[in-house]
């Protein structure tokens, strides 16, 4: 790994920003110099920063960037009203993560989280039920909107943590489904 020696010598560091959809950026941060992104020098200048808000300039345009969520090494950045979530890894942690991911293999269960805050208006399944991908699990009412939450996989309901009229907040774990092959 020639690059590793490179960045050690000039005090630069190589990071990998990995998006939730698999997009990957290799970014070299160099003290006092513009970053190298995917082998290219990119003239991104920090204009100012305050708390969770950063302003960058790139190709004569300004980009306001707000950190809307931060969890360990995962950052959600809001830019032009759209969110992008990245986990940032140094090279060693990135490689380690890849190896770990291979070891654990496939997930055997999946937990369904509340995609938004709201009220449970109907529950269509019971623990032990078998469901197909696309089957409705429950209905969540957020403001005036009814949202049917569907099972993303074929499986068996292992846990059901909701009943009708429950009020849930975003990311509450509501249902756990065991994968059925």
């Amino acid at each position, binding site marked *: 790994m020639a690059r590793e020696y490179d960045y050690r010598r000039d005090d630069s560091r190589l990071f990998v920003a990995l998006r939730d959809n698999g997009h990957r*950026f290799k970014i070299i941060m160099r003290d006092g110099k513009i970053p190298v*992104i995917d082998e290219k020098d990119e003239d991104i200048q920090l204009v100012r920063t305050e708390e969770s808000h950063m302003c960058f300039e790139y190709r004569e345009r300004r980009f306001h960037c707000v950190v809307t969520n931060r969890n360990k090494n995962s950052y959600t950045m809001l830019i032009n009203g759209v969110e992008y979530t990245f986990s940032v890894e140094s090279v060693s942690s990135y490689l*380690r993560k890849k190896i770990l991911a291979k070891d654990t293999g496939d997930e055997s269960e999946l937990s369904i989280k509340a995609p938004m805050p709201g009220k449970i208006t109907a529950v269509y399944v019971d623990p032990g039920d078998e469901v197909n991908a696309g089957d409705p699990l429950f209905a969540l009412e957020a403001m005036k909107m009814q949202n049917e939450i569907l099972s993303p996989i074929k499986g068996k309901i292992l846990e059901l943590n909701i009943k009708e009229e429950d009020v849930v907040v975003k990311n509450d774990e509501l249902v756990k489904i065991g994968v059925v092959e």
Partner: protein
Amino acid sequence: MSKRLLIANRGEIAIRIMKSAKELGLTCVAIKSPKEPDALYLQHADEVVYFDDATRTPGIFLDIESLMGICRDNNIDILHPGYGFLSENPDLANACKENNVVFAGPKAELIRDMGNKTIAKEKAVEAGLPLLAGSAGVVHSYEEAEQVAEQIGYPVILKAAAGGGGRGMRIVESRDQIEKNYKSANAESLAAFNNGDLFVEKYIPSPKHIEFQILSDKHGNVIHLGERECSLQRKHQKLIEEAPSPFLSPQKREEMGQKSVEFAQKIGYDSVGTIEFIMDANGNYYFMEMNTRIQVEHPVTEVITGVDLIAWQLRVAMDEKLTLTQDDIKFQGWAIECRLNAEDAQNRFAPETGIISQIRFPEGEDIRIETGVENNSVVTPHFDSMLAKIIVRGWDRQNAIGRMDRALSNFRIDGLKTTVPFCKLVINHKDFILGTYTTKWVEDYYTDIMLEDPIDEMIAAHAAVYLYHNEFSKVASDTPDFEEDSMSVWVMKRRLNS
């Protein structure tokens, strides 16, 4: 003494109503509720009445009795219901009448009739408005369904008479599919509603939503102010509107406008109102319903006609004669409105709540902003998610689209996600630019990936790394024997979190 107006509403529409009302010399009374005690609309009122509805259901804007109490206690002469809430509730109009308060809307009977689909459609037929063809009543066999379908032509939709929520509903493309679909819809409907009755109706796969603005008084004068196109919808909620519609020829506009006026005359309409149509790809149009209130999207009509609809709504309510004639209505330029909802377009338009730490609207001569919020406003789950509207006018459609694009680019908000990125995406999409979009556009074409921009994504990646790197350097300098490669992922994460 000037007359006193109670605004039985909140948000941007309360402010909009007060603006016109003040120009008419009315004293504006707004209602302050503990659900949003610092709301922007309160600052625009001449007087504010406090009403504690914190533990009451329904809230004040849905509570006719309490509203009447406020009217009595505050010597109210006129009540404006805005949109939503009780604006199309005939009981409010009646209660106003009983309490000698002028209701800024049509007569109660008109609200009641237009709110009843069956009656509204009967009246439409009487006035010669086209309706979607279908079975007169329920059909009892697939043969009967087939007979109706043959008459009206495919595709047709079978609908459960007792139905709702899409159950017992089937779209039938051709004759060979009708038996199978009839039987499954019948069985499903029977299982779901204990009633297997079905209707057959002509199905329009991707309709346009076109509506005509009516303005009339209590003396029999009726005019129309042209159409608005509101086809850009999500789950029947409008998101972007424009006037005029790029889909109507001048002949069609005149024909539909004329028929709309005849309908309003026939039913004795006496306020502002909107007649909604759906239109198929060939320009055939069908009456859907009439809305008896001022609509969210009324500004696009105001912008191209120069008519203040809310001022007229108040004036005709106070028995004034309409002095505008159809010939006075001239359409100038093109208007587009984008609704700015606190919703996450990346997450099925889930509502967003929180504090708006900063909001900056675009400014310019041809930009009109209707907002219910400002810096530090709190967006609560008590009310609907629309915060503001951006309306632009251009000399033609292309010019208006360009102006809207720049206006949306110059909008900034911190603290919440809004529908602005979605609106920006839509107005730059070829289907919008060509004017061919339909009410099915969001369902058929929209995915949240379309909101993303590769440069924004790269900048975001860099920003994340920048933050991580800063913290990383801090950990390194705070730890004398720190050496990156020797450190396990777990130890490093723990340090970063400590």
